C-alpha cells in the first residue's frame, strides 16, 4: 500500500485517493483542487511552520506550494505521489527562504516574527524541564547550516523515514545520511540522539 493511500485510509477519506483527485484537477475540476488543499494544507502548513519558525511565513510557503503544484501538475509522473511531491515543493521553498534569511540577518535586516519555534509550539501542560529542553534544541538548531538543520528536523522533528527526507530535499540517501550525521555531531554535545541514521 502506498503511503498516500495508507494516509487516505487513516483519515477516513477512502472515497477518493490522491491519484483520482490529481486526474480530476488535470481535467479542470476546481473542486478536486479544494479537496487536495483541505487534505494537505494542515500537514504542509505545520511542517513548514516548524522549519521556518514562523506561522506567517509557513502560510505563505504553503500557499505557494499548492499554486506551484497545481500549475505544474502535468509534470507529476505518479499522481498517487502527490503528497510527497507537494512536500518536496514546500520544503525546497522553505529552504530557499531560510537561506535568504541568513543573508538578511547578517545585514541586520531580518525582522521576522519567530512564533513557531519548538519551544513556542510545545503542548500545553509540558513541564518546565521539557520547555527548557526544547528551547535549548531551538538554539542548537539555529547554529546549524540550513541544509543540516532541515535534514535533521525532517528526520527527528517530523519523524520522516530517511528515504522520505531524501525525496523531500531532492538528494541522494547518502547525502541525507551524511547531513544528519553532521548535525548529530553538534546536537550530541547537548543531547543523546539516536544514531541509526549513520
Amino acid at each position, binding site marked *: 500500500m502506498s503511503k498516500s493511500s495508507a494516509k487516505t485510509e487513516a483519515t477516513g477519506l477512502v472515497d477518493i485517493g490522491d491519484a483520482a483527485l490529481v486526474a480530476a484537477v488535470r481535467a479542470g475540476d476546481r473542486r478536486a483542487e479544494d479537496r487536495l488543499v483541505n487534505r494537505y494544507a494542515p500537514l504542509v502548513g505545520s511542517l513548514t511552520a516548524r522549519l521556518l519558525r514562523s506561522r506567517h511565513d509557513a502560510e505563505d510557503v504553503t500557499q505557494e506550494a499548492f499554486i506551484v503544484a497545481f500549475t505544474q501538475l502535468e509534470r507529476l509522473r505518479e499522481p498517487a505521489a502527490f503528497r510527497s511531491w507537494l512536500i518536496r515543493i514546500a520544503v525546497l521553498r522553505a529552504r530557499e527562504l531560510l537561506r535568504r534569511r541568513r543573508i538578511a540577518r547578517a545585514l541586520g535586516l531580518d525582522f521576522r*516574527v519567530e512564533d513557531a519555534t519548538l519551544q513556542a509550539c510545545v503542548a500545553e501542560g509540558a513541564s518546565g524541564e521539557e520547555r527548557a529542553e526544547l528551547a535549548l534544541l531551538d538554539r542548537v538548531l539555529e547554529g546549524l547550516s540550513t541544509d543540516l538543520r532541515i535534514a535533521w528536523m525532517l528526520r527527528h522533528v517530523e519523524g520522516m523515514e530517511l528515504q522520505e527526507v531524501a525525496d523531500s530535499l531532492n538528494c541522494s540517501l547518502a547525502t541525507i545520511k551524511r547531513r544528519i550525521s553532521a548535525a548529530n555531531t553538534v546536537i550530541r554535545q547537548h543531547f543523546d540522539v539516536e544514531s541509526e541514521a549513520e
Partner: protein
Amino acid sequence: MKRLSTPIKSRLENPIDAAGLARIKAGVAARERTRSPRYGRKALPLAAIAAAAILLGLGAWWSRPSPIIPTPLTSHGEALVALRAEANRRVDFDDGSYIELDAGARLTPVINDGRILLWTLEGGEVEFEVRPGSGRRWLIEVGGVTVEVVGTHFVVRRGASVVHVEVSRGHVVVRGASVPGAAQHLLAGQHLDVAARGAEPVAPSAPVPASAEVSDSQSPDRGALAPVDVISDALDSERESSSESSEPVGTPPRSTAPAARSGGLNDPVAHFLERVDAARSARQPRIAARELERVVRLYPRDPRAGQAAFALARLELDVLDEPRSAAAALEQALSLGLPRALREDARARLVEAHARSGRLDAARAAMLRFQMNYPESNRLSEVRRWGEALGAH
C-alpha cells in the same frame, strides 16, 4: 545527558490554527481564480499573440503618470469622523461598503490609511457590510477583542459585559484574551459572545477622526519621531508617575504632542507611539500600555514592534504590577526581535515576571535559559535571587 525522544512533533501542538488554514485556503483559491485555465499545446500560438497584446497594454499602462496608491476610505467624498448615533442610521462609503448604527452606537475611526481601517466600537450595535477586494483591512476593536474582516456582512454589539459578533455572510476572525483559544474564525451563520473588558477610559487624545489625520499628513515633520526614545521617555515618565503621582486613569492629558509630531497617515505606528507620548505627558500608564499593546498586535512586522512589546512589559512589571501580562509581553518582545543590548534585560525580567506571577516552572525554565545565555552577566545574582525565592516556595 538527556535523551531526545523522537519524533519531537509528537510533543508539540499544531502551529497552524483554523484561522491560518482558512487564510491558506483562501489564498490558494484566490490565486487559482486568477490563473488561466489549462490549454493544450495547440493553443500556444494564440496564447503567444495574446501575451504580446497584454505586454503592449501593460507598457501603455506602465507609462501612465500617476500610480495607484492606497487612499483612506471616504464617505461621499468626505473623510471619516467619529459617529454617535442618536437614532438608527446608515453610513455609506465610497467603496460600496456601508454600516448601520443602532441608536446609541458609538463608533470611531482610529486609523484610516488606505491599508488599514481600524474602528473602535465604544458601545451599541453596528451592522457592517464590507465590500471585498479593496485590499483594505477592516479591524473593529470592541471590549478587549478585535474583529478582523475579510469582506463580509456581520454585526458587532457591545453590551455592558458581553461583546457579540454575528456573521451573516463571508467570514471574520475574532481575536482577544477573552476569546477561546485567543482567536476564533467565524463563518456565515455563526456567532460568538465573549466577555467584554471593563469600560475603557477615554484616550489621551481621543481617537483621532480621519479628518484630523488628513491635516496631520500634510505636516512637513510627519514621521520624524524617534520611536525608541519616545518609548523610553514614556517609561521613564511612568516610573516617575508611579512614585510621585497616582492621578486616576482617564484624566484628560495636560497637553498633547504638537501637531508637527503627529504620526500621520503613512506611519500608523508612529501615530500610536505619539499617543504613548501623550499618555506619558498625562501620567497615564494604563493608556500608554494600551497604545503599546495596539502597536504589537496590529503591526507585529514593524521593526519597532519588539521594542514596543518590551516597553509594554516594563510598564506592566514596574508600574502596573501585572507580572503575568508582563511575562507574555516579554516573550513576545523576544520573539519579535530586540537589539542585543535589550535582550539580556528582557530575559532577566522574564524570570522575575514568571516568578512574581507564581508560574514557577516557567520561571525556572527562564532562569535556566538566562544562565545558559549569559553566564557572565552582572544580572546573574539578581536572577538567582528570584531562583532562591522559588526554592523557598
